[in-house]
């Protein structure tokens, strides 16, 4: 798996406001980048630009490898039991046999709309891990999770990085992992 993610001289404009500009980054397999900054500074926009869902106002993005995105939208059908909602993505990703990253047996029969915020986040993380994408883009992955959930996400990202994956995570909270590169988005605000 030779994944690569690079951006050159990115600028992002929302409405008539330039959120950031002159942002360049280059990530090799095993790299974890923590994007920090206050609310509304453009962390989510940066991740969507890196994912290719939003076109940058200026600059280019180079991606080698599939992208897995985790944001505030779970992309799981609310009326379906969790097992069915996840099975849809497993069918799309062609990874029917993969294990869930942690114990979710007791949640699989519960319709997604009855899950709590934290449980929904865990379900979305399970979707992400079954996707087996080399590039992970995590937008506020710790929101809504309890202490155990937070350390589980830390372990997930660590093992992803050990398996030569790339991870960019945007979070205003401290992330429980050592050896991350940090990108302070405030430095790129015009």
């Amino acid at each position, binding site marked *: 798996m030779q994944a690569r993610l690079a951006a050159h001289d990115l600028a992002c404009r929302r409405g008539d406001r330039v959120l950031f500009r002159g942002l360049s980054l280059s990530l090799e397999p095993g790299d974890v980048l923590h994007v920090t900054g206050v609310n509304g500074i453009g962390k989510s926009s940066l991740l*969507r630009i890196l*994912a*290719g*869902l*939003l*076109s940058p106002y200026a600059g280019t993005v180079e991606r080698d490898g*599939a*992208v*897995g*995105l985790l*944001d505030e*939208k*779970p*992309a*799981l*059908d*609310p*009326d*379906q039991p969790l097992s069915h909602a996840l099975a*849809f*993505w497993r*069918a*799309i*990703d*062609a990874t029917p046999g993969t294990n869930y990253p942690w114990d979710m047996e007791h949640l699989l029969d519960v319709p997604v709309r009855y899950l709590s915020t934290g449980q929904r986040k865990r379900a979305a993380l399970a979707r992400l891990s079954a*996707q087996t*994408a080399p590039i992970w883009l995590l937008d506020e992955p710790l929101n809504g999770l309890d202490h155990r959930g937070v350390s589980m996400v830390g372990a997930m990202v660590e093992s992803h990085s050990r398996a030569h994956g790339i991870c960019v995570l945007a979070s205003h909270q401290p992330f429980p992992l050592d050896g991350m590169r940090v990108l302070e988005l405030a430095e790129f605000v015009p």
Partner: protein
Amino acid sequence: MIRVLTALMWRDLRNLLFGGRGGGATLPLLFFLAVAMLYPFAVGPDAPLLAKTGGGVLWIAALLAAILPLDRLVQEDIALGIFDQLNLRGVTEEIVMAVRLVAHWLSFGPLLMLACLPAAALLKLDGETLHLLLLGLLAGTPGLAAVGLMIAALTAGLRAGAALSGLLLIPLALPILIFGAGALERGDPATLGFSAAISLLLVAITPFAAGAAIRAGREG
């Protein structure tokens, strides 16, 4: 690719046909039958009058029934982030919309044609009119489904999208209605060719128009 299409189609049919969300296919069907049931009460039990006007009324009922599922056709999947996740997996919006168009038509077109049988009995339609009506709906409903999906994708981001989509569908669906119901008046199936041609054109452009609308909506 086949695997992806199957998964998409199964999910769409489950949501649209079996009422995974709010009513499913039963709502347009009941609406259509309700019109056929109410019309004789409104104009009186005059069999020749019913037989003369009933076909046109059923066409209007079919057109209005096609509006009912529009608000849950695209909007919810945008809110859930389904299209974003599919895009990251290389499944373009055009493919998703093409599958949804087929699923949307399957969830109301064949059912409305089936419902034409009891409706024709209620409105005292003769065999030939029923035949033309069924052929017309077969030619026209794919076009209605296409216009509906296109409008649902275009209005997905708007606050009053559901109400607006109903208003937008009516003028765009007018040609289908004119040629489809016009065949009843003349008793000539040849007019249905126009209806089918318009349908075909709409079916062909809808995946691209709806896909572009969803992509443009992301930038907003």
